[in-house]
């Protein structure tokens, strides 16, 4: 029998999972479970597990919705945010969490992403961002760094990569953050903040795909890929204590943007009430 946490929050009859040795997905999935557990135990929040819905699309990472023992739905490629929008609309009291790959959410699903952000839908999106299409064998994704290789970019990708968090923030997301597989505690805290935030929140978690991205780009195995995160990604307090020169080439692990704007289902509810009152007064 696995640990209490795994037993409590995962469908253990589906485990061990099918992800490759050293794949970052297992760590991020656990981060989500710990975040939920800590919010359930937090007397200020008392998150009700029955109100949590996990929604995913298609990809290696999207299999997480099948492993997590919650109300969950494993949808079609790119459409996780669209399904999640429908769920949130039908029952705004639900805590809808989207687990999605970089391809799922920023390639085929890019439109759903920007429009859910624009509306400030009350969703929490956690990306498992491994810079590649893992499930289909290593095609480049919108987050593959320029110059890096993939089966569809054998001489290196020409495209400028998306920064998914920046993209979401630009489209109107009111909470965006960056996490990583290496920075477990920080990432759990960012997911918790994202869940507590009212409005569209996106936590872009940098994952590792040693099998395709790592192998194609000579990044070493999972250990070397995590060392890269340790050396190049810097948690908030340390990051802001660094000089501009020290910050060069380093990525912040922490909150990127945070703003207030009315949440969409609230506004919709107000609209319905206003129109009903107008109709009744006729």
């Amino acid at each position, binding site marked *: 029998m*696995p*640990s*209490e*946490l*795994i037993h409590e929050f*995962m469908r253990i009859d589906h*485990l*061990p*999972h099918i*992800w*490759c*040795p*050293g*794949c*970052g*997905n*297992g*760590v991020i999935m*656990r981060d989500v479970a710990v975040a939920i557990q800590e919010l359930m135990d937090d007397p200020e929040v008392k998150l009700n597990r029955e109100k949590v819905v996990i929604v995913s699309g298609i990809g290696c990472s999207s299999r997480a919705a099948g492993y997590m023992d919650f109300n969950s739905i494993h949808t079609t490629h790119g459409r996780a945010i669209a399904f999640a929008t429908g769920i949130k609309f039908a029952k705004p009291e639900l805590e809808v969490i989207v687990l999605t790959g970089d391809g799922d959410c920023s390639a085929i699903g890019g439109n759903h992403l920007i429009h859910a952000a624009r509306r400030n839908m009350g969703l929490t999106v956690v990306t498992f961002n491994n810079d590649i299409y893992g499930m289909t064998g290593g095609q480049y994704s919108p987050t593959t760094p320029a110059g890096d290789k993939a089966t569809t970019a054998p001489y290196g990708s020409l495209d400028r990569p998306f920064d998914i968090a920046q993209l979401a923030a630009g489209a109107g997301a009111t909470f965006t953050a960056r996490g990583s597989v290496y920075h*477990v*505690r920080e990432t759990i805290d960012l997911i918790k903040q994202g869940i507590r935030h009212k409005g569209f929140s996106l936590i872009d978690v940098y994952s590792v795909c*040693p099998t395709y991205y790592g192998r194609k780009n000579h990044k070493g*195995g*999972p*250990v070397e890929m*995590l*060392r890269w995160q340790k050396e190049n990604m810097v948690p908030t307090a340390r990051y802001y204590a660094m000089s501009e020169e020290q910050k060069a080439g380093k990525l912040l692990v922490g909150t990127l943007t945070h703003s207030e704007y009315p949440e969409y289902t609230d506004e919709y509810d107000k609209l319905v009430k206003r129109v009903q009152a107008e109709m009744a007064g006729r």
Partner: protein
Amino acid sequence: MAGKKKLVLDTSWCKGCGICVAFCPKNALELVEERVHLKPDNECVLCGLCEMRCPDYAIWLEDLEE
């Protein structure tokens, strides 16, 4: 109450990625035939970092029964 803990391993879930071995601050773990093991002479301080980092949930801390 924070009682005593013990480290538990389920080698049947281990895929031998080596992450716990590389990041254990006490160098207490090793891979034997591609599966994690606690070294016979180890200085494990029960910090739980391996549990946090294991992508396969094959190693964790558990409360020691009194």
